[in-house]
């Protein structure tokens, strides 16, 4: 029996292998302005000629991707491959230009750390702000607050304004808040490389804990070792196209051969 309530309750269950996300022939095109000198004069000139100083960027092109419950999908690709664009389309932030995306469950996104945070407020107030922004209720945050504070390892600094935090402290608190949300489908974009080595490992373990049969995880990362360690499927995007999808080791191998970074150890340093 598949329950498809949109609620974020922990009790919502999905049969393993039921469809979580279905991306069907999705294309995404942006129009960007390429005015070299965005002056009024140039604008007025182009008005008369009906010529638009714009360039169309194909961020995604005919992407087909099904993600099932129980899957941990890693998404890899070089910069500008369309990974973040795809995540934004799946989470409903940006509408696709072509195609269709179906989502069967509640989605939580961890696309950037500290979304909704206000640096003037204390860490404590920001736990509430960030949690509410991520779609948690006040009662849920009350309940989870101690766990969040513990996980962030901030100690007394939790009651100091966040503008006094170091970037590592900021990232730690942001990750702690985000990792508490328990959605059906969790999308994480480059958020694992936060803090020092100790915290990186801790956050990686947290992600591993979130791998359950009734949840789908999508991780975007450049850290191949992490992807290979955590994911049971990998999708490789290149210039908006889905190049390969399947067994992590195989797809990563193909990707490395394609980009010729196989031998370089520097490419794998970021965990």
């Amino acid at each position: 029996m598949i329950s498809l309530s949109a609620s974020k309750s922990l009790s919502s269950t999905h049969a393993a292998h039921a469809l979580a996300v279905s991306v069907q022939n999705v294309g995404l095109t942006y129009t960007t302005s390429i005015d070299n000198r965005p002056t009024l004069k140039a604008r007025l000139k182009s008005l008369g000629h009906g010529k638009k100083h714009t360039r169309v960027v194909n961020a995604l092109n005919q992407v087909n991707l099904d993600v099932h419950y129980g899957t941990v999908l890693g998404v890899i690709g070089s910069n500008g491959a369309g990974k973040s664009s795809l995540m934004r389309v799946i989470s409903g932030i940006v509408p696709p230009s072509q195609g269709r995306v179906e989502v069967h469950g509640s989605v939580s996104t961890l696309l950037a750390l500290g979304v909704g945070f206000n640096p003037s407020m204390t860490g404590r107030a920001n736990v509430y702000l960030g949690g509410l922004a991520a779609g948690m209720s006040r009662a849920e945050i009350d309940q989870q607050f101690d766990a969040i504070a513990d996980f962030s390892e901030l100690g007394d600094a939790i009651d100091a304004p966040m503008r006094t935090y170091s970037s590592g402290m900021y990232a730690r608190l942001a990750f702690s808040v985000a990792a508490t949300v328990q959605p059906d489908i969790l999308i994480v974009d480059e958020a694992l490389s936060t803090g020092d080595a100790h915290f990186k490992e801790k956050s990686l373990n947290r992600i591993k804990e979130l791998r359950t049969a009734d949840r789908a995880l999508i991780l975007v990362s450049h850290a191949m070792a992490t992807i290979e360690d955590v994911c049971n499927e990998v999708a490789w995007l290149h210039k908006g196209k889905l190049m390969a999808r399947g067994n992590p080791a195989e797809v990563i191998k193909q990707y490395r051969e394609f980009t010729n970074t196989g031998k370089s150890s520097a490419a794998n340093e970021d965990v």
Partner: protein
Amino acid sequence: MSTPVAVYEPFRAGLPPLGAYLRSLWARRSFIAEFSRSELREQNYGSVFGQLWLVLNPLLLSGVYFLLIYIIGGQSDSTRYGNLTASLFLFYLVSNSLTGGVKSITAGQRLILNTAFPRIMLPISAMVIALFKFVPTLAVFFVMRTVLGLNYSWQMFWAIPVVLIALLMGLGMAILISCINVYFRDIASFLPYMTRSLLYLSPILYQASDLSDRLRSFEIANPIFYLLDAWSQVMVYAQAPDLFSLLHSLVWALAIFIIGTYFFLSRERDFAVRL
């Protein structure tokens, strides 16, 4: 095959399913409250007086404008001063919604690009902040009108519908202008001149009855002229407002709110790629 919870398809200008939209907005009510509170605190962050500025601002404002009408008009009876402060405070409820609302979408870029939520939440917060700023001014006004020796009466409860209309007006304006600003950023630079003109076109530094009939008939085009007139009748003269003033402001408020909301809701899925 089960039915999907959410389907995302190419953007077309048109309203989203309103029921689902309102439900997800309602689910985020505590975020709106918390977000507004933190924005408000940030505005006075680091100042010596802190949140006391919420009371100091209206006091100083009314003092400065009192100087102006005293020097220009050469007279200052208590009703005139009462009218000035009462109207100025309600005017700032509307104008703070506008100035807070104009950049609410463009400044919320990080939030918009990284989280899916009903975007209308941002201009709503701008109105909530304006309301937070308005409440202390009401207290200041009541102290003032007691000192000035103005009468009290039960008719003053008419203030409630007048404030509700003003809130609807402020909300509609915030929603409309935040959306316009996504497509036409210059509006933010025009805004100070627009609100300043609105201030002088409205019965704040003068009373509605001071205007000639000919000028008053032009004021039908001013959305807040009769709103402020009704407010002054209630708060300064402790009378029931005349029906025309109430209706005029209600019709304007509804029109701005409906047009603004339609424009906003039918465009909001396009915002993320325009920021």
